[in-house]
């Protein structure tokens, strides 16, 4: 059951180039949220649609989101200041399903933030032995949340497209290397479409259950308008699922991936 909330911002920060974090106060959200769920945030009077942003972290009654400025909506968000109010629908979507003992998180760019909450929630569960995070960024200037992941995970590895931090290359290269050296029960992935497609192929190859958090343009955000479709298959039948309500997290095998 999503809430329609008006929340007061307590903190804002420009955490990296074009990337911002906003912390706001909402017991309701902080209590109910599951990693991988998102919020649908109204971004001012001039924009007709809300913007979907994942929950990155919670701390008592506080909720944190981290986002990259892409267009008018995220630009508006980036200009908010402590004391301003946010009009929020949430928590929305299904979130990650935490299973197994050794968890691997893999995130790219703007897909990194929700994995932090996944790491923290996993670490708090008794059954988990290890939580490994593989994070990819285009360059060192775009790298975010490194300290938080280091604190929450058993191990963290970084890849950058230009080699300015961590391994030079794609985060999916790190993934192959890791899977060759250790057995994982579950992969949780969030990031650009092509990254998710490759992660999904690799997970198949190594036969590890993999959940991917998909992105699609949204209208209502709650499952009513059918604009946010993602093609999925189950029992051999293809259909359009709703990223907002059936997702955003899907089993990687469920998703019908487009050609590269």
């Amino acid at each position, binding site marked *: 059951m999503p809430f*329609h909330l008006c929340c007061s911002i307590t903190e804002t920060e420009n955490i990296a180039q074009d990337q911002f974090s906003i912390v706001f106060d909402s017991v309701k959200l902080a209590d109910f949220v599951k990693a991988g769920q998102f919020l649908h945030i109204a971004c001012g009077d001039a924009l007709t649609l809300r913007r979907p942003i994942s929950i990155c972290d919670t701390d008592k009654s506080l909720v944190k989101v981290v986002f990259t400025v892409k267009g008018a909506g995220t630009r508006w968000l980036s200009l908010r200041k402590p004391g301003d109010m946010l009009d929020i629908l949430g928590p929305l979507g299904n979130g990650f399903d935490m299973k197994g003992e050794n968890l691997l998180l893999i995130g790219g760019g703007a897909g990194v933030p929700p994995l932090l909450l996944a790491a923290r929630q996993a670490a708090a569960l008794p059954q988990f032995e290890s939580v490994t995070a593989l994070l990819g960024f285009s360059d060192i200037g775009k790298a975010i949340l490194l300290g938080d992941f280091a604190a929450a995970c058993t191990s963290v590895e970084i890849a950058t497209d230009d080699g300015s931090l961590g391994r030079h290359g794609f985060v999916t290269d790190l993934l192959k290397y890791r899977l060759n050296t250790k057995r994982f029960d579950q992969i949780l992935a969030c990031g650009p479409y092509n990254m998710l497609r490759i992660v999904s192929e690799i997970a198949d190859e190594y036969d590890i259950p993999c959940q991917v958090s998909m992105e699609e343009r949204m*209208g209502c955000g709650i499952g009513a308008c059918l604009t946010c479709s993602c093609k999925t298959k189950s029992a051999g039948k293809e259909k359009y699922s709703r990223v907002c309500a059936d997702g955003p997290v899907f089993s990687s095998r469920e998703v019908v991936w487009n050609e590269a």
Partner: protein
Amino acid sequence: MKPDLTVNFAGVCFKNPVTVASGTFGFGKEYSSFYDLSELGGICVKGLTEKGRDGNPPPRIAETPMGILNSVGFQNPGVDLFMETELPFLKRFDTRIIANISGNTVEEYRRMAEKLSDAVDILEVNISCPNIKSGGIAFGTSPESAAAVTHAVKQVSKIPVMVKLTPNVTDIASIAKACEDAGADALSLINTILGMKINIETGRPVLRNNTGGLSGPAVFPIAVRMVWQVCSAVKIPVMGMGGITTGEDAIEMFFAGASLISVGTANFGDPKAPLKIKKGIDDYLIRKNKPSLDCIRGRLETY
């Protein structure tokens, strides 16, 4: 004194004039977690086709200045499954159910009307969807084909038939008149206006369907003009929609001649938009000391 918000629309009594627009409200379930659907005058359900349809490939939605483009393309379970799995839930609420139907042939419209005509309160015959090739809009752009569909549905329907008109025409009043002459009990308008958005980084349309239907506040002045033109041309009642976002917008629509209004895109910005609009209507009537909607409906005094 509380104003009387009830509306007798083509013989069907609506407890208030606020409905939600087809395709923006699914089959009601999702919005029912925000408020009691019995608060609504009526619900126009997601557009139905005879057989279920998968809809168009994504992306299906794009934002434009004070509007959105959509190209959902009738993703729906089909009439039978709707009646079996969705309708029972909707029936639990004290509100009018309006089934929105689209066909590829006149026969399809007729068969769907036959099936639904016992099950819901009003049939909304959609001859105006810009998002699928055959069916829909092809019927809505000429008076003859609009009349043909209307006539076929009227022959079998035991409930009032409301025809949903497209704004993508030169002369909407002539099409409205043709539907009235063919027996339509009511009209609804406007459906979306065909539009396009281009991603200049990729040089490709934002929507996978290339074009989509424009809705939201941007189209409101066009919708008001068309509702006014249609209401001036026909005697049957009209459900006005297209960009209605506030109670004031609804009042404009009533002045233009609408008997009911429908809220679409505004639901996305605010899930409770229909209730706020209802309250806005109420507040206006109280402030203006008008006992009922009859005092404003069609009362636009033109120059």
